[in-house]
């Protein structure tokens, strides 16, 4: 759009980050041109510097970061050398920010509308009453339920998808020229995401706001951006308008990003009918206190097979895992292992029963003790379950490290903080394998990882399954992961099994309405996907509303 006025001009932006006392460069000379009313997608994996660049375009750096070179101009104003009061007069009024986690970015101590009206009243754009009226009209525009009333709630009383829209409304409160969206839908379920995407796109169009849209999800950026810029480790890889970029990426790195979703494992033949399943979940009913969560769950997992359990947050996936591991004894129903019922409470299970069921967690960061070395982390279950000590234990730990494709000599004495995200998750896998289990529960093990890294983890899990004849229960909300690794799929909704069956059947129409909704809500790489879907289904038949209808 060369006919439009230039709004943001970033030239050769360099940013340094501090680790201890040492400053290292994390952004190595990036240029951005953004015109009024235009949306630029910034895409890359974690560590690419996307958020840092997005914030720097607002003239803001987080603690421990500094702009070490280059220029940032907003509407002709030099933001690098602007005084703090000068920048504050722009922030909130002409430049606004929408953060990744709305739940964490709304102040828990104040009502939504008070936070919404803060910027306009502070900057003198509106009076308090006008600002409140405007908030209500923005809430309505963003299709929030009960727009008159929702602002008078506290953040914890509003769902994640609604909060994200309320935050977009808040960013719009002064009708800024620029909004920086920092992964605004990453924390949301697919069905909720689509609603938020539609709302953001509508309002950005309507007020002709320019936006920097930061994400790691290509399919999402394809819906939102006019142009896309690909970043890698603080360097610019390439930039082109969205359609060109999708159709004909120039650089190898971009091509590799585009190709990530290609890993698919063939579905294994179903287990013979008379085979005793490794794990059999029988009519499990569970509740937290008086809040019922699971209403009679039934399914089997056979030797060497992967059952993917999918569903939105709150559908009871993780609760089911807690029932199987015995952390949350079910109210009724049972979990059988090799045809024998396991005691409901893990404290009543014997060591061998505990050993057979292991778990890998979503956040490897918090699941590994930060003060223990890898040797101790993996050595502990080796000693506890198998009674190995001394030399035998050391050899077993090294063998496990080789199985997860990490060089023992290099890694065995490191602390978790000295590993990358993917390596930490591999340690999580090794710790589960150390018990020599038959069955492993993988709880969202790849959702905190970049796509390339996640694919490595999925391949590793697949190889280990073939080698050791493991059974997996794979909890995820990501249907691409399901397609990659599952043999069977269990779709959960509101504590019930909505549909279950072999992967190939589940991914082929006709679908159960809820499965159909989930599948059709996953963004595709086609830039017209969202528009087409909205035209076909109408704005009222997407997201939570649609989810309730099929429920």
């Amino acid at each position, binding site marked *: 759009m060369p006919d439009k006025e230039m709004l943001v001009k970033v030239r050769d932006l360099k940013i340094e980050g501090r680790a201890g006392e040492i400053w290292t460069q994390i952004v190595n000379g990036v240029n951005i041109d953004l015109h009024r009313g235009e949306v630029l997608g910034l895409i890359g994996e974690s560590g690419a510097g996307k958020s840092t660049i997005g914030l720097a375009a*607002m003239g*803001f750096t*987080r*603690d421990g970061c500094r702009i070490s070179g280059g220029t940032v101009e907003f509407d002709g104003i030099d933001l690098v050398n602007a005084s703090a009061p000068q*920048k*504050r*007069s*722009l*922030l*909130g*009024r002409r430049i*606004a*920010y929408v*953060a*990744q*986690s709305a739940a*964490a*970015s*709304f*102040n*828990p*101590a*104040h009502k939504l509308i008070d936070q919404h009206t*803060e*910027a306009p009243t*502070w*900057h003198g754009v509106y009076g308090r009453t006008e600002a409140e009226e405007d908030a209500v009209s923005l809430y309505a525009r963003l299709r929030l339920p009960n727009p008159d009333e929702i602002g008078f*709630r*506290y953040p*914890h*009383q509003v769902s994640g998808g609604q909060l994200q829209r309320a935050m977009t409304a808040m960013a719009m409160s002064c009708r800024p020229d620029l909004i920086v969206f920092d992964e605004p839908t990453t924390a949301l379920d697919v069905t909720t995401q689509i609603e938020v995407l539609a709302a953001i796109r509508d309002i950005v169009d309507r007020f002709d706001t320019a936006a920097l849209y930061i994400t790691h999800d290509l399919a999402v950026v394809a819906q939102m951006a006019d142009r896309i810029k690909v970043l890698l480790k603080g360097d610019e890889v390439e930039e082109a308008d969205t359609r060109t970029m999708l159709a004909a990426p120039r650089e190898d790195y971009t091509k590799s990003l585009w190709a990530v979703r290609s890993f698919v494992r063939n579905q294994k033949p179903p287990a013979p009918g008379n085979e005793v399943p490794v794990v059999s979940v029988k009519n499990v009913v569970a509740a937290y206190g008086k809040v019922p969560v699971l209403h009679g769950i039934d399914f089997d997992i056979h030797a060497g097979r992967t059952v993917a359990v999918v569903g939105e947050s709150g559908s009871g996936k993780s609760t089911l895992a807690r029932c199987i591991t015995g952390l949350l004894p079910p109210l009724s129903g049972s979990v059988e292992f090799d045809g024998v019922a396991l005691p409901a409470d893990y404290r009543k299970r014997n060591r061998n029963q505990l050993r057979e069921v292991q778990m890998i967690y979503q956040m490897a960061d918090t699941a590994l003790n930060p003060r223990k070395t890898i040797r101790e982390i993996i050595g502990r279950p080796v000693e506890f379950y198998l009674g190995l000590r001394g030399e035998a234990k050391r050899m077993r730990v090294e063998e496990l490290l080789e199985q997860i494709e990490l060089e023992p000599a290099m890694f065995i004495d490191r602390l978790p903080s000295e590993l990358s995200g993917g390596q930490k998750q591999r340690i999580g896998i090794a710790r589960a394998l150390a018990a020599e289990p038959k069955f492993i529960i993988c709880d969202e093990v790849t959702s905190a990882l970049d796509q390339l890294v996640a694919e490595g983890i999925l391949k590793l899990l697949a190889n280990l399954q073939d080698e050791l004849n493991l059974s997996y229960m794979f909890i995820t909300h990501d249907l691409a992961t399901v397609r990659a690794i599952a043999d069977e799929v269990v779709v959960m909704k509101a504590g019930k099994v909505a549909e279950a069956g072999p992967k190939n059947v589940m991914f082929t129409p006709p679908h159960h309405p809820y499965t159909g909704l989930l599948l059709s809500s996953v963004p595709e790489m086609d830039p017209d996907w969202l528009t087409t879907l909205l035209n076909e289904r109408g704005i009222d038949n997407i997201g939570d509303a649609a989810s309730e209808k099929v429920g």
Partner: protein
Amino acid sequence: MSPVPRIILQRLALGVLTLLAVSILIFAAVNALPGDFAQAILGQSATPEAVEAIRNDLGLNEPALIRYLDWLFGILSGDFGTSYSQIKFVEFSGESAAQGGIANVYDQLVPKFKNTTYLAFVTACIAVPLALSLGILAALYRNSAYDRAVNIATLSSISSPEFFLAYILVLYLSVLGGFFDPVSNINAEMTGWERLTATMLPALTLTLVVTAHMMRMTRAAIINLLASPYIEMARLKGISPMRVIVHHALPNALAPIINVIALNLAYLITGVVVIEVVFVYPGIGLTFVDAVKNRDIPVVQACCLIFAAAYVLLNLTADILSIITNPRLRYPK
């Protein structure tokens, strides 16, 4: 129903239970003290008969359980017993004891307790706003020269012995400055203003003692939140750094701050013996020390119970305030 009333009732019940447990502890501890009142007041030359007579008269020969229950039910009906040291032992036979000019412990302690509470109140009125403002400013200008200066000043004041601080203040504000009288002997005839100025020196000394703790907690609790996404969001709205701290960080930092304030207020009631001695302030601390010296068991027990009640009550208040300041508990989903 909002869970707040239920939580508050639970805490209240727990508070009563705690006090009951504490009363047992106090009774046991005081009874385990060596020596006894009868022996102490009669001196070395006392005849065993005389000692026995007094013991009988005071009910010291009853079994411990009976004495405890007597004491407990007495308190429940507002009777804290009779101060031993006020009993006039005209004859050692004990017949005339417990008659005439006997000071009831309750009547004896009430004015002292009022004085101590008054001192604590005056101190709190100075120290709490001072500590909060210093803490907020220290968080705002963290790692600046101001921050360091405040930290050093408050830390040195908390690290110095109380009597030392007291004498320094006496030197500058009383001897050299002549603003206040170095002796804070307040009494019922004083006007409000006289009372306030007489209390000023001990109050200022105590302010120096308690400010550091509260100020540092305010600073730490606020700084702890500054990395939160909602603080970043507030900054990105372009509002002033002061408003970010006061409006966005402080409401979420209140719980730990309130708790530290409560602990310090409790200290102002229970831990001010030294200051009361230095300034001859007629508070409960002085009474307590005298009672221990005289083995005046009913007074010692009553003082201990008052101290315990002050701790329990203030911590309870802190708990309840922390709950009320948390919107998650005030407005459940």
